């Protein structure tokens, strides 16, 4: 599926989207003082993300990198891809970053999510925070990730290959997502160690299964 970024000023978008196109030179980003959020189809860069939050008043920079795992509950994942509602996702990322910047007295915060196919083992998200002292940076980094996983309008699809088909993951319950294809997928209901991270951040999704 093509990414959800509408082509700008375009009258016939569907005709122009024959396939998902990696738009290497077209990151979508918002920055304001001390805050940077972005969605990109490119590889993520630690250095440039860290440099976004670097400050002479900071004594600590903490970076979190989320990488794509090769299995879900032992079911081998062949590859993953991410799609987003870009304008809304960026707005939500900005809201989260503003809140955490203030709450933890940070000097800077940057949150960058990769879209499109992300090969196994590569970074899908980077979050960097800087603060005068390390404790606030550790806490803020963790909280930023949890908030992101609970709220940001980005979706991960895992392809199992062969008869496994693919599923859209849902962070909120760590359970297997909605099947894309007919084939059976071992009903691997259980705890994904990382995927349960975003649980319950948003109550209005309705009841959890």
């Amino acid at each position, binding site marked *: 599926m093509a990414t959800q970024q509408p082509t700008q000023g375009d009258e016939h978008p569907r005709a122009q989207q024959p396939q998902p196109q990696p738009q290497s030179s077209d990151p979508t980003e918002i920055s304001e003082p001390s805050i940077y959020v972005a969605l990109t189809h490119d590889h993520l860069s630690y250095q440039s993300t860290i440099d976004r939050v670097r400050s002479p008043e900071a004594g600590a920079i903490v970076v979190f990198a989320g990488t794509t795992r090769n299995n879900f509950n032992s079911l081998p994942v062949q590859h993953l891809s991410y799609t987003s509602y870009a304008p809304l996702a960026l707005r939500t990322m900005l809201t989260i970053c503003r809140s955490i910047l203030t709450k933890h007295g940070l000097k800077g915060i940057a949150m960058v999510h990769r879209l499109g196919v992300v090969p196994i083992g590569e970074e899908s998200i980077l979050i960097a925070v800087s603060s005068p002292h390390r404790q606030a940076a550790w806490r803020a980094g963790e909280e930023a990730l949890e908030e992101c996983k609970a709220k*940001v309008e980005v979706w991960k699809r895992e392809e199992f290959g062969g008869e496994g088909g693919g599923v859209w993951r849902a962070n909120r319950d760590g359970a297997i997502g909605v099947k894309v294809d007919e084939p059976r997928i071992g009903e691997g209901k259980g705890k994904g160690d990382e995927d349960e991270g975003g649980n319950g951040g948003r109550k209005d999704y309705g009841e959890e299964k």
Partner: protein
Amino acid sequence: MSAPKPPKGHFNLLYFASASSHTGKDMEALPAPLPLRKLFDTLEERYQGIRATVLDHSLVTINLSYVDMPSSEDKDGEDNAVVIQEGDEVAIIPPVSSG
């Protein structure tokens, strides 16, 4: 950074993740105005089973703001009932999975 303009008398409905898989579409234009509480019924008519599979677990935005989805039987408070207007951008937001 807005979606392509819908035809006159229509609004855009965007589908993401499982909503996109179920409908086979990323987006489509539907006739406006449409009371918000009739949105899910309208979609269920077009895409049988989408309510249970997708909509019951999803949120809805209108022009990038989340809206509360009233029940289709809810006749109370019709005066302030939300109505989707021509030109609006509405989106079905399944449970997210960033990170």
